[in-house]
């Protein structure tokens, strides 16, 4: 099994700013191998000033329980600073994982980034 198959190098995180809203773009696999590294990269992202967050998952191919927990932690942080977290662009199998996990009943999930940016305002 090579490093790519193991998932060591298959996660990319990009943070963009769209009119004061932080847009986190997740690409690849979010699993136990890289969840803590992603958490480190996103550390300090949520503040009282920057409390509107959109997570774009259009290019996210796989998410494990470690990834789900990361999203939950982020949601808690956003709630603590009185902000808003919106998830968008999920592929159907990722959406299924979120739905099965009960996340759709506690988080805001929309189809497109445009909708998300509107919803996050």
């Amino acid at each position, binding site marked *: 099994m090579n490093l790519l198959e193991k998932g060591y190098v298959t996660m990319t995180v990009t943070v963009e700013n769209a009119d004061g809203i932080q847009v986190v773009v997740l690409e690849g696999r979010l699993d136990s191998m890289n969840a803590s590294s992603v958490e480190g990269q996103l550390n300090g992202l949520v503040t009282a000033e920057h409390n509107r967050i959109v997570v774009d998952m259009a290019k996210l191919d796989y998410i494990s329980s470690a990834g789900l927990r990361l999203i939950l932690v982020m949601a808690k942080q956003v709630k603590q600073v009185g902000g808003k977290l919106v998830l968008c662009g999920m592929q159907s199998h990722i959406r*299924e994982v979120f739905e099965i996990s009960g996340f759709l009943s506690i988080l805001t999930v929309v189809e497109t980034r445009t909708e998300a940016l509107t919803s996050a305002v």
Partner: protein
Amino acid sequence: MDPMTTILGGLGLFFIGVKLIGDNLKRMTGKRFRSLARKTTNSPIMAAALGTLSGALTQSTSAVTFIAAGLVTAGLVEPRKAMPLVIWSNLGTAALVMAATLNIHAFILSLLAVTGLCYFMDLHKATQWRALLGAMLGLGLLFLGLDLMKSGTEPLRAIAIVRDFVTFSSTSLFIAFLIGALLTLVAQSSATVSVIAVTLVSTGILGMDQTVMIIYGAGVGSGLSVWFLASNLTGTPKRLINLQMVTKMAGGLVLVPLFLLEKASDIPLVLDWVAALSPDPARQAAWIYLIYQISATVSVTLLSRPLATLIEKLQPPNEEEALSRPQFLQESALQSPETTLDLVDRELARMVFHLIAALDNLRLDMAHRDDLSHHSLLLTATQSLGEEIQGFLADLTDQDPPREAMEGAVIAQNRVSLLLDLRDTIEEMIQAVEKEDQIAPEVAPLAHALLESLHLTLGLLAEEIVLRDPEGLDTLVAMTADRSDMMERTRRSLIHRSRQLDLSAQELLFATTAQFERAQWLIHRCARLTRGRDDAPPIAVPSGP
């Protein structure tokens, strides 16, 4: 009659007798012994007395050691408290050897007459008499066998080849020692071999020196025999086996050098002492056996503390034991019911961590890990741990604690029951999906999604059981709320998408989704019950398995 035939016939009766006595006395005392052992091990003196008595009754230190190991495995007795029981059982085995030197011929024949009459009256068919009559028959046959052997060996002394053999073997005490050890390995009892040696010395077939070395060899052989019998045991119960082996060896370590010193220097030691006790060689040999057991028992008892520490270091608990045993609950905790409930929470969290680790065996996310404990071991440990917590909570409620603590204990009991149900559900789910190659490719992504989701909610449950954060518990309650409509939609959607889904794949789909739903419902119930007691301050999260 040919002396050899008489000896072999006597030996046969003797062996039948030993087996009958041991089996029937074990049957008579098994349950009582267990209950007695639990009660008496709190006092080292009482435990030593019970060990001596049980050694005398069963004539098998192996039997006593294995019963004690069973009690330790079941968590009924602490290993250190069982030590006197195991050590002192050796002393009890001397009863048979001492009795073999007494002239109880008339008593034995009378015993056989009574036993035979009882058999003739079919009393042995009655459950309450069967074991006692079996033991009486065994005792009669054993001594009858010894009598036959004595009468067979007396003419042997006149046979030249026997005289030559005895003369040859008396030149090497090491051979006698080896014969004693090897015969004990075969017979599984040093008392059995020693009784035969006592019988042979009484007829002059064996010399005193040879007999002593056979008895010493039998002691050491008995230690090896216990060790071989327990070769498949690991962990804490093995400590008692090792202790028994050391005890049996200790007698040899003390007495063999003394014997060699006495022979080499003419310093009056053990041989001289037993000669003073009795002029009869058979009685002297029986005293030697008793002295061996006393030396072994006393020396190991004196060294029991450092020995226990050493054996504990050499024989740590095995993985299943470590996972099955409570880490935080001790009997002393019962004195403070409020603290006990916090400690119970930690143990409940450990149960959940075991279930999380069991799921890890099947998760794609863990495919790179080669250090995972097997799920069957973790599920067994979860069951055992749950039962231990239930027992502890039962003890707590028996103490009639304050109302608040009583309510907390009842809620905790309900949560243990829920977690044990959760364990069963997860076991069924694992059994359904563990054969990766047999899962239809259409169902596999959903099965993995269910595993990841369950893994997440279990993790949150473990965390919230110890943190008791109301917000976190509310989130978990919301996440695990009834979603049967959603699951039904997921099932229909998958069947619709995969029109070629065969019957077995559909069965797997229904089984795993139903098990998942049940697991989430149980987590939901457990989270709600945990939310019920959130007035106490949070405690530190224990590390996972």
